[in-house]
């Protein structure tokens, strides 16, 4: 433990409106902390910059999963364990449930929250490709009110996002219209558990008469933040699943991806594996859906 607990203030106002009031009083001064699976690691290493932290743990208004005819509203404070335990969500949003099972191990899943995963903004975030493939929206809240933003517009740069200094993420909204879509999610990491992604690809697509009418491709660790692969999508939509389409899509991904070399992998490996994952998905689209 290199950090000094006395160097940081931590308060737990206990309800959402009190947290928002604090953040409005001193915008940018308070760093929200939920399950601590990111910030407490920095704290232990002595590299936690935040001096004033406000706890979101235990706030019921942030920890919920609601389903309606339109879709799911997932509180930003829902843990990945909550997501996995929700049978209806797991059945209807299988990519998200699978991503939740990839977060660390059980002890991490019991504390790590989906809002924390998104706000932290790691390029390798496990839940992001699934949420991008499902066209999710995020709902943000402050004392000024709430607003909704497409999740694909939430990240603006490496660890940067559209949250104002007094805003919190309140919920993630996932529409319920992907039942007929073919769905894909694969993470490539060093081992099966407790590994951060070298690269991951999530996708949803509608196929009719052998032609792709709609497709969403989303990658982790191919850009400074989790992002859709719009140029690759454009080479596929309206085309039949054929060798030329796969070839064009691979080339588009190789051109569009902007990965980096880091401790977990190299840019070249990430680019090539990203293209391989895309090819795997497209070849799956050419087969009959599994029951």
């Amino acid at each position: 433990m290199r950090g000094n607990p006395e160097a940081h203030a931590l308060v737990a106002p206990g309800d959402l409106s009190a947290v928002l009031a604090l953040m409005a009083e001193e915008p940018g001064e308070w760093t929200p902390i939920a399950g601590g699976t990111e910030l407490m690691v920095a704290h232990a290493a002595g590299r936690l910059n935040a001096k004033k932290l406000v706890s979101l743990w235990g706030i019921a208004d942030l920890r919920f999963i609601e389903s309606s005819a339109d879709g799911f509203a997932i509180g930003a404070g829902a843990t990945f364990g909550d997501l996995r335990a929700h049978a209806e969500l797991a059945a209807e949003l299988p990519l998200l449930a699978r991503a939740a099972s990839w977060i660390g191990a059980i002890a991490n899943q019991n504390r790590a929250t989906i809002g924390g995963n998104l706000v932290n903004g790691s390029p390798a975030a496990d839940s992001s490709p699934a949420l991008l493939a499902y066209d999710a929206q995020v709902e943000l809240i402050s004392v000024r009110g709430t607003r909704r933003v497409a999740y694909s517009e939430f990240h603006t740069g490496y660890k940067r996002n559209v949250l104002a200094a007094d805003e919190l993420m309140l919920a993630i909204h996932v529409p319920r219209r992907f039942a007929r879509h073919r769905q894909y999610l694969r993470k490539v990491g060093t081992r099966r558990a407790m590994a951060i992604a070298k690269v991951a690809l999530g996708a949803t697509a509608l196929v009719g008469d052998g032609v792709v009418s709609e497709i969403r491709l989303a990658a982790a660790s191919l850009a400074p933040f989790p992002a859709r692969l719009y140029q690759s999508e454009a080479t596929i939509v309206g085309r039949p699943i054929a060798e030329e389409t796969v070839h064009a899509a691979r080339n588009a991904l190789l051109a569009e991806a902007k990965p980096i070399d880091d401790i977990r992998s190299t840019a070249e490996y990430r680019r090539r594996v990203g293209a391989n994952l895309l090819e795997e998905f497209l070849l799956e689209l050419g087969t009959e859906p599994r029951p």
Partner: protein
Amino acid sequence: MSDSLPEIHFTVNGDRYAVRVPAMKRLLDVLREDLRLTGTKEGCGEGECGSCSVRMNGELVNSCLVPVLQAQGAQIETVEGLARNGELHPLQQAFLDCGGAQCGICTPGMLMAATHLLARNPNPCPAEIREGLAGNLCRCTGFTRIFESVAAAARKSSEVHTKRAVHAR
């Protein structure tokens, strides 16, 4: 400084405690330093190895990643709470019988993760045991004997339940 420290109440293995410590002090350090419950071990200190696993309100957590203020009012279970009246918990006995413990550093965390697993799933298959313990690293045993220990404890407790059920008839 101590005037401004929050008073934090919680129970550990059913015993009530109140401590005045910095809110950002890790639950792990409060257990070990303030409560002198040194069964819970620190391994990596970053939520990767599971040595510091405890249960908080029935959920398995890494106590190195819990700022103690977030344990306010919580019910904490640590490895010290497993044995009762000098009698080992069935999981502890199984680890002993099957060679599931060697140097001992990972053992408290393994026991807590295994306790959590069996509380949720009394008859786990081998894949479920592996998943339940995936966040707990051991550098001695090669894991196989640990998995066998958990399976043995699960078998034993289901035998006990069966016997009780037969007896009840």
